């Protein structure tokens, strides 16, 4: 007993160091696992509130780009509306279905903190569980996808950016139905990569990439980017680089997408697998 006490006294600083280091290592491992919710994040009242204060000042410098984004989105939506008119005018005998269904619900939010130069990037937004934001919801803006909600607090939420080594998002080619997975190699924040594109898919530079309908998080057809270049090895596509439409270094306002039929679809799929 005496010796044990002596041992502890002699190595007390090392033991303290070891204990704290284990705690830090535990946080680090949690941070690297995608599924686990983590304790150290900027979605809490102190850091979130601080970033909001900072952002209130910064915001004025981005009014011009924000307006530009809104105009772009308006033009895109107006063009879509025009297309609708032509479609409807051709089919004249359709019975208008008056049943009201809504599959996606959008919540607007403001980005108060944005990272894009690290290997694992996160954003913080100023809406949280009080506004109905939950983990595992998609986040987009007028120019394309941003990421997926990871942690929420009462008034803030963190987003796992598409510029994160653990981000995997289902996407597809706009002009064919071949699916792939959007990943990021951590190098350039304007360029992401696509893997798992089957070799029978015909791709060329400049092809548009949109979100695929397979994901439960994003509606189909949200813009992602265009193919910048790709390599072919042994008849397989390797390293398809995508130039993003979004400038990930300047994200202002975003929309959080809630899939209202997600639970229904998940339950049905689970039931099917279990049978």
């Amino acid at each position: 007993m005496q010796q044990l006490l002596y041992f502890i006294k002699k190595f007390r600083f090392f033991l303290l160091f070891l204990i704290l280091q284990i705690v830090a290592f535990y946080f680090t491992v949690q941070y690297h696992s995608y599924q686990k919710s983590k304790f150290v994040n900027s979605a809490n009242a102190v850091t979130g509130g601080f970033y909001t204060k900072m952002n209130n000042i910064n915001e004025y410098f981005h009014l011009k780009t924000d307006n530009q984004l809104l105009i772009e989105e308006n033009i895109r939506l107006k063009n879509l509306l025009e297309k609708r008119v032509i479609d409807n005018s051709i089919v004249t005998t359709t019975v208008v279905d008056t049943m009201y269904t809504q599959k996606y619900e959008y919540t607007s939010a403001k980005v108060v903190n944005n990272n894009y130069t690290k290997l694992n990037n996160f954003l913080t937004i100023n809406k949280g569980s009080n506004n109905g934001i939950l983990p595992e919801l998609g986040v987009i803006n007028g120019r394309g996808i941003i990421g997926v909600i990871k942690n929420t607090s009462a008034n803030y939420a963190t987003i796992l950016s598409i510029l994160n080594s653990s981000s995997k998002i289902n996407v597809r080619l706009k002009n064919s139905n071949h699916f792939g997975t959007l990943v990021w190699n951590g190098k350039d924040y304007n360029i992401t990569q696509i893997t798992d594109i089957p070799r029978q898919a015909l791709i060329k530079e400049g092809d548009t990439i949109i979100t695929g309908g397979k994901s439960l998080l994003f509606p189909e057809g949200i813009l992602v980017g265009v193919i910048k270049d790709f390599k072919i090895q042994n008849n397989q596509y390797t390293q398809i680089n995508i130039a993003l439409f979004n400038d990930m270094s300047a994200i202002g306002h975003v929309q959080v997408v809630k899939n209202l039929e997600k639970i229904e679809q998940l339950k049905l799929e689970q039931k099917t697998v279990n049978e």
Partner: protein
Amino acid sequence: MNNLTLINIFRFIGLVLLQVVVFNHINLFGFINPLIYIAWIFLYPFRKNISLFLIVSFALGLCVDFFSDSGGINAAATLLIAYIRYPILKIVLKRSDIDFLLFNIRTVPFGKAIAFISVLTIIHHFTIFSFAYFSFNNFLSIVSNTLLTSFFTVLIIILGILLLTKKK
């Protein structure tokens, strides 16, 4: 609560804010963000109470982690350099009987102070980037990031110390 404690508390808060408000958004050449908050470790006086120093260093790293969403990466690295600060200083100054109670980074010869700061900074940054990448497949990225970021961190810390502290 004496003068020295107050100075260190202000320095702690000031450096964390400076790090998260300014230096986390510098993005020099697109990816270099100097981690200047570790200047606190270099400036903290040597005292008998090492436990307090270790705990506060851990808290310093954790504060930066909270703001930059990085798990426990900064906490682990900062704690490590806080623990090895004393042995490194002994090696750099090549003697064991320094007057540690009167220790001040400005009393150390300039070249040795740079060596002391550089060694600790490189160890700190190497830990940070190893934990951030978390695989040795990216060993080259880890080493290049470490060296480039360390260079700017050391540069800014030394300029800061020269300009903002009094010569003893």
